[in-house]
């Protein structure tokens, strides 16, 4: 069983929906290849229900290929939600209409859809598999600037004139992409890389960073789903982080206590700090809860949120302290946050 995962619940990301809407046959080709590789006789295209153009395109493409010799296929609209795209949540929803993760083990690769071993694979990866099958690995390897070869889809958001999805050669720097879209180091305070599961980094530290999964991992950063989110220089990182953490807390599937209570506590405390109403223990509590919540859930939602929070404390540490001590934002200069 193959699940082509196009749920794309990551709010800042748009690459999967755009890929499916514009190149649905590539995704289908890749899914068929994956099914052949593992001996699967069924493919489920699991596509976020809000990605209407993607749903329409994939359905139409499948109709165009009626009569083709291939595994049986069906399209399942994934419900809106950050966690709905998690592999076990996808399997759970396809089988029983409940898009919440399940306890692992068993892994979906052992016990997935209808109890069968299931490969849950992101649609972008499938599209690359299709391209490699079509043009060869040598062709694929012509792109890429560092060890890691190939290209990747990224979503550029924030302090640029032209936001949107780009295909980049792996190893292209943050600065090149941002500058080409009208961004500048002066206009940018920090960058969130890899999405809400990812990491904050100060703009000075990453303007020349190659967007390459290996290089990024070595530096404690994440390529993740390819989000490059530029925080405008006039915005406050503490407030931006408070918004992300409130979202992550709300998007908990609500099944595991440490995630339900821990993320809510972190989100609430971060909001108090952002709004200049921090209690004496808030910063210490945020730090403690953040390290405490890691690994304590059925899925990795709390781990991703904790990683983002920990990186925020590192990158915006002075600003967190300023907010907590003085009840003010040093960027807006006011008691009321601006971001």
């Amino acid at each position, binding site marked *: 069983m193959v699940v082509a995962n196009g749920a794309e619940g990551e709010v800042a990301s748009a690459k999967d929906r755009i890929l499916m809407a514009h190149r649905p046959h590539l995704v289908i080709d890749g899914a068929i290849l994956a099914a052949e590789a593992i001996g699967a006789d069924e493919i489920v295209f699991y596509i976020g229900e809000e990605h209407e153009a993607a749903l329409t395109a994939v359905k139409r493409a499948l109709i165009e290929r009626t009569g083709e010799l291939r595994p049986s296929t069906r399209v399942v609209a994934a419900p809106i939600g950050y966690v709905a795209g998690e592999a076990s949540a996808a399997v759970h929803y396809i089988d029983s209409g409940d898009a919440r993760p399940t306890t692992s083990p068993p892994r979906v690769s052992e016990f997935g859809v209808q109890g069968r071993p299931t490969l849950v694979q992101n649609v972008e990866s499938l599209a690359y598999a299709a391209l490699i099958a079509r043009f060869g690995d040598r062709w694929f390897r012509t792109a890429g600037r560092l060890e890691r070869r190939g290209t990747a889809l990224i979503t550029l958001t924030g302090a640029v004139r032209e936001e949107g999805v780009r295909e980049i050669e792996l190893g292209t720097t943050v600065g090149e992409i941002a500058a080409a879209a009208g961004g500048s180091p002066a206009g940018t305070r920090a960058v969130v890389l890899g999405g809400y599961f990812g990491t904050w980094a100060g703009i000075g530290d990453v303007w020349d960073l190659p967007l390459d999964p290996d290089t990024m991992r070595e530096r404690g950063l994440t390529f993740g789903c390819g989000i490059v989110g530029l925080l405008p220089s006039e915005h406050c990182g503490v407030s931006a982080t408070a918004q992300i953490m409130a979202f992550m807390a709300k998007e908990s599937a609500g099944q*595991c*206590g*440490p995630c339900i*209570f821990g993320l809510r506590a972190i989100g609430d405390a971060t909001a108090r700090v952002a709004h200049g109403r921090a209690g004496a223990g808030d910063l210490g509590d945020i730090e403690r809860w953040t390290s405490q919540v890691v690994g*304590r859930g059925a899925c990795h939602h709390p781990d991703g949120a904790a990683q983002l929070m920990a990186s925020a404390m590192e990158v915006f540490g002075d600003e967190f302290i300023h907010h907590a001590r003085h009840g003010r934002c040093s960027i807006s200069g006011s008691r009321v946050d601006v971001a």
Partner: protein
Amino acid sequence: MSPEREVRLRVDWIRCDGYGLCGDLLPDLIGLDEWRYPIMPPGPIDRGQLNEIQRAVDCCPMKALILEPVPADRRG
């Protein structure tokens, strides 16, 4: 469970409802957060404590505490 196999404690976080009995029964091994959800020790457990640990496992009202062999791919 063969005697030479390492064993570990795992929590089924979806089942766990934060009763905290495990932490009360095994305070040296299992911590509790402020919502009484367990904070587990990393790595395999000391077999000398197996009796007390089994008792805590049996006492969990949600049957969320699991004593199991360390999976092959997690050893070493």
